[in-house]
Structure formats: structure tokens, C-alpha cells
């Protein structure tokens, strides 16, 4: 087990390094610099500013400086908001984005699984068709369109929920709904189809032959097996929700990390781009690792390095 974790950690570090390097290459290859847009700046001021932020150094030196800032986890101040360090921005934005992400995942997973189970148990019945109809809509409508629709209907037309920002639980409803519907629909469909398959398995028939009650069979024998594919796609869903937060935070004016990330790219605010990218990547990589561990716990067949066999 320890060897497996160490190996995984090494792979995670390498992945992160590749992402950092790619980000750096992309960053220096997009045209423009943080100071181009400032009309007043003359060439000397611009040169001074660039040298202040080491932007006049050759690329490999800049690259090494970036690596250093990442290893020490000190990205320095934002170029655009010099009175704030990147770490401060992250510290302020992350808890909000995290809250949005976590609430979304919880809503998506719980409602997706319940919907999937009900659909499977009422296989080919009215509820099944309803649930799967909703699921298809949920998958095919992009979250930014859903967000706009929700705002228009539930905030503007009916004034049930606030339009934007992130202040109270009521503020959380619309962004969460917009972000959770897609993943929920995917989970519901997957749960339904695996549940249907699991219910035809011999061990379910065997459980019935033991005289167990239907609920016991579903909870104890079917659900766990049906959830395994759901756990495998959790990684992809997490990545989707994470990128979804960029869009949703913009639409609902939520002061999370995604907002800073998008702004920083538009403004070529290099330290902020680097800081948010590293942070997002590290976060996602760690989550994927946890998903794998969870899969190992759910399925005894892939317990790592535990002796078994005859």
C-alpha cells in the first residue's frame, strides 16, 4: 500500500510539472504583456516595469524563477493589483469556489443516484421515462444556458432567489443548480444502467433465494456494485465541475477563484495565472487520487498489494 501511494505521489508531481511547463509555454507564447493596455505608459516605464517583474529575462531564466515560486509556494504580488499577493487572492477565492464545488458535488451525486435507482426499479415505467427525459435535457443543456434560464425565470420573473453574488444559502441555490444538473444527469443515467445490469446478476438472484427482503437486496447487494462505475467517472465529473465553476462564477458574479483565473488570463497577470493554474491542477490531481482510493475501498478485487489468492 505504501509503495503504491509513493508511486502515485511521484506520478502526481510529474503530472503537475508537465502542467506547469505547458502553462508557462502557453503564457509566453500568447501575444501581449500585462502592460500593453495601459495607454499612458511610455516605453521606458514599460521596460522598467518588465524588468521589475523579471519579464525582460530570457525565457529559461523566467521559467526557473517560476519553478522557484511554485516550489516555495510564493507567487509574489499580482501585477494588476500590486497591493495583493497571489496567495491572498487564492486564500480569499478558494473557500468560496470550494463551497460551490462541494455543494454541487453533493447535490449531483445524491440526487443522481436516487434518480438512477428509482428509474431502474421502475424500469420502462412512467417514472423511468420521466427521469431519463430530465437526464437527457440535463446532459444536453450547457450550464451557462441553464444558468441564464434560471436567472431569468427564478430570479427576474418570479424573484424567488437572488440574482447573483454569494452571501447566503439562498444565493447558493441557482449557481448550484446550474452547475449540478449536468453531472447529476450523467450520474443518474449511469446509475440506472449499471443498476439494471446488476439486478440481473446471479448474486442478486442468490440473495433473493436466501429470502432477503427487496430493500436489503438493493442496499446491501446491488447498490455497492452499481456505484462502482459512478466512482470511476467521478474524476471526469470533478474536472467538469471545476471548469464549470469558472463560467458559473462569472455569470453569478461570485468572487471565487474562477473569477480571478479568468480575469488574470485576460489581463496577462502572469503570477495570478500561474498561481491559480498550479492550485487548480494540484487540487484536481489530489481529488483524482482520492477517487482511486475510494474505488479500492468499494471493490475488494482491486485492493492494492494485499495478499490473496488460493
Amino acid at each position, binding site marked *: 500500500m505504501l509503495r503504491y501511494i509513493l508511486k502515485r505521489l511521484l506520478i502526481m508531481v510529474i503530472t503537475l510539472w508537465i502542467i506547469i511547463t505547458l502553462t508557462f509555454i502557453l503564457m509566453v507564447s500568447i501575444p501581449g504583456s500585462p502592460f500593453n493596455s495601459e495607454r499612458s505608459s511610455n516605453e521606458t516605464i514599460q521596460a522598467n516595469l518588465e524588468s521589475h517583474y523579471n519579464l525582460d529575462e530570457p525565457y529559461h531564466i523566467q521559467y526557473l524563477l517560476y519553478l522557484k515560486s511554485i516550489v516555495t509556494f510564493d507567487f509574489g504580488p499580482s501585477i494588476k493589483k500590486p497591493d495583493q499577493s497571489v496567495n491572498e487572492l487564492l486564500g480569499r477565492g478558494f473557500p468560496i469556489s470550494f463551497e460551490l464545488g462541494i455543494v454541487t458535488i453533493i447535490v449531483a451525486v445524491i440526487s443522481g443516484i436516487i434518480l438512477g435507482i428509482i428509474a431502474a426499479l421502475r424500469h420502462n415505467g412512467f417514472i423511468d421515462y420521466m427521469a431519463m427525459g430530465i437526464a437527457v435535457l440535463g446532459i444536453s443543456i450547457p450550464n451557462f444556458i441553464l444558468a441564464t434560464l434560471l436567472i431569468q425565470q427564478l430570479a427576474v420573473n418570479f424573484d424567488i432567489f437572488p440574482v447573483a453574488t454569494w452571501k447566503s444559502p439562498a444565493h447558493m441555490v441557482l449557481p448550484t443548480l446550474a452547475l449540478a444538473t449536468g453531472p447529476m444527469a450523467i450520474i443518474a443515467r449511469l446509475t440506472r444502467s449499471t443498476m439494471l445490469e446488476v439486478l440481473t*446478476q*446471479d*448474486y442478486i*438472484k*442468490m*440473495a*433473493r*433465494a*436466501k*429470502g*432477503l*427482503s427487496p430493500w*436489503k437486496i438493493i442496499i*446491501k*447487494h446491488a447498490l*455497492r*456494485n452499481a456505484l462502482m462505475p459512478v466512482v470511476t467517472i467521478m474524476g471526469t465529473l470533478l474536472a467538469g465541475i471545476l471548469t464549470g465553476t469558472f463560467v458559473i462564477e462569472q455569470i453569478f458574479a461570485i468572487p471565487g477563484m474562477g473569477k480571478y483565473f479568468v480575469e488574470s488570463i485576460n489581463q496577462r497577470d502572469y503570477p495570478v495565472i500561474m498561481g491559480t493554474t498550479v492550485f487548480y491542477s494540484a487540487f484536481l490531481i489530489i481529488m483524482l487520487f482520492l477517487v482511486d482510493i475510494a474505488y479500492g475501498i*468499494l*471493490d*475488494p*478485487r482491486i485492493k492494492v498489494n494485499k495478499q*490473496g*489468492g*488460493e
Partner: protein
Amino acid sequence: MEKILEVNNLHVTFTTYGGTVKAVRGVDFHLNKGETLAIVGESGCGKSVTSNAIMRLIPDPPGKISAGTIKFKGSDLTKASEKRMRSIRGVDISMIFQDPMTALNPTLTIGTQLMEGLRQHHKVTGEAARKKALEMMDLVGIPNPKERMKQYPHQFSGGMRQRIVIAIALICEPELLIADEPTTALDVTIQAQILELFERIQRATGVSIILITHDLGVVAKIADRIAVMYAGKIIETGTKRDIFYNPEHPYTQGLLKSVPRLDLQGEKLTPIDGTPPDLFSPPKGCPFTARCPFAMEVCDKVYPANSILSESHKVNCWLQDSRAKKLLAETAGSKA
């Protein structure tokens, strides 16, 4: 002898998009206490459907027991409530499935799956359940039961898994055990071991067994009586001796000729030509007509009645009907 199970005129149908499959079409048989009845017949003849019907495990929809009675110790299971059936399944009647590789839940330990039925039905303490489970693992011949209880199915070989499945089926001490092709998925040496295990368990517990198989070798080894099934009907029943030495139905004769036998070395194996009839619209008469070398005009039109050859031996074939016999004798006489 006391009859533990009596099946009369059992009909099972499945409603599908293509029409109604008449999978079981009037099956009669009985099982005496402590004996082993083998149900044999080729694939698709309705053996599994019959055994699932006894457990009331036919998926409904699409399946349905459309007629008949299944009397277990005098009470008709076709009329029992689902709740009553749950208290019978695993306690009075247990079932073993064909493929031990898929019959166990891959995510639960062997111990959990063993004790589950016991805890459900007998409300015993965890300690008592563990003790009984260890006893059962010992009975079915699994070494190191204590450690093995904590392991998962994938850590066992096929033969070991089938032993565990048998232990699960027997843990509540049922009076009737239905084994649906329990050895088909296993290799030959393991098959023999499992059959011996059945015999040993039957001697130890007196359990009555219905053994479903298409392997006549298995039948020869452990059955007391045999029921031969064809296209949803039982066409011949008798003791092992009746069926192996005096098979009267042409289908039974064909079955016996199509298996290799040591005592008949040198004789050619002859498979039965043709295929069983379509169960969407089974023929009115004898379903074997199309493949039967002795088929007569009447066979196709009217289903042959049950001819009682001896107290144990019964067959449904026009050749055994007294009227046909007379006719045959006459034609034979006129030719001579």
C-alpha cells in the same frame, strides 16, 4: 414414502414482444423425502424455469405461473404470499445456481454472505451465526475456515466457490435443495468432488434434492429417480434403473445413445438430429414428432397420454399406448 414436494400441471409462460413463450407446459412430478430426483433434458426445455417456479423466483413480468399447483409439505406455493415465500426461501427450500463464479457477491466477504440468511431468518446472535458458519465451511470441506470467512469471492477457486454456495444454501438446514446444474461450470475432477459432497450432505442431513442437469453421467452417479423433460413437458419418469436400462421414450433412448459409455465401447455415438420445437407455438401433439424415428400420424395430432409401465416408470408416448400397441402387433402380424 412421504412426499415432500408435489408439482401438478405446472404451466409457466413468458410474455415477450415476439409473443408468448410457453416455457413449461403442464409438468407433473413429485419428490419423496430424502431422495434425489434428477431432471434432465436438453438446453431450453424448461428445467431452470421449473425450478425457479418452485422458488417463485420467476421474474414477473415477463414470466407468470399460469396454471398448476406446487405443493410443498401439503401447502400450495403458487398461492403463497411474497412474504410467506421469503420465509420459505433459504429456510425450507434452498437453491444452488450453475455458475459459482457469478453467484457470490464480489464486494461482500464470504462470512457475510454465509451468515446473512441465518441472521435474516433465525435472529441469532453474531457469535452463534459465526459458529454455525464455521461449522458449515467445515462440512463442505473448506480448510482454514476462520481466515477464509474474512476473504472475498475472488480469492477462491471455482470449486471452492461452489462449496461456499452449497454451504450458504444449507446453513438454515432446508428440507429441499434445488441444484440447477451445480457442476456444469466446473472441471471434471472438481465435479466428482462436488457430487460426493452432495451425497455426504444428504446422508448427514437427510435433505431432499432436485438435481437439474443435462449430464447423464452426473445423473447415473447420484440420482434415485429421473424425470426426462422435453419442450416444457416431462415425457418419461422412472427410477435410475428404469431409465438407464429400460428407456421407453424415443427421446430418452436418443439421449442415452448420445453419451459415451464405457460398457458400450466400440458402439457409435448417435446424436439426436433436429432441434426442439418453437415454444412460441408448440405443437398440439407429441413435441418430439419432428425428430422421432417412430413418429406416427397420430403423434402429430394428439398428445400421448401418460402410460404407466410400472409403479415407478411412466412415459408419454403413443408407442406405449395400449391402443397403438395393439395396432402395431396387428400390422406386424399381417406382414408376417
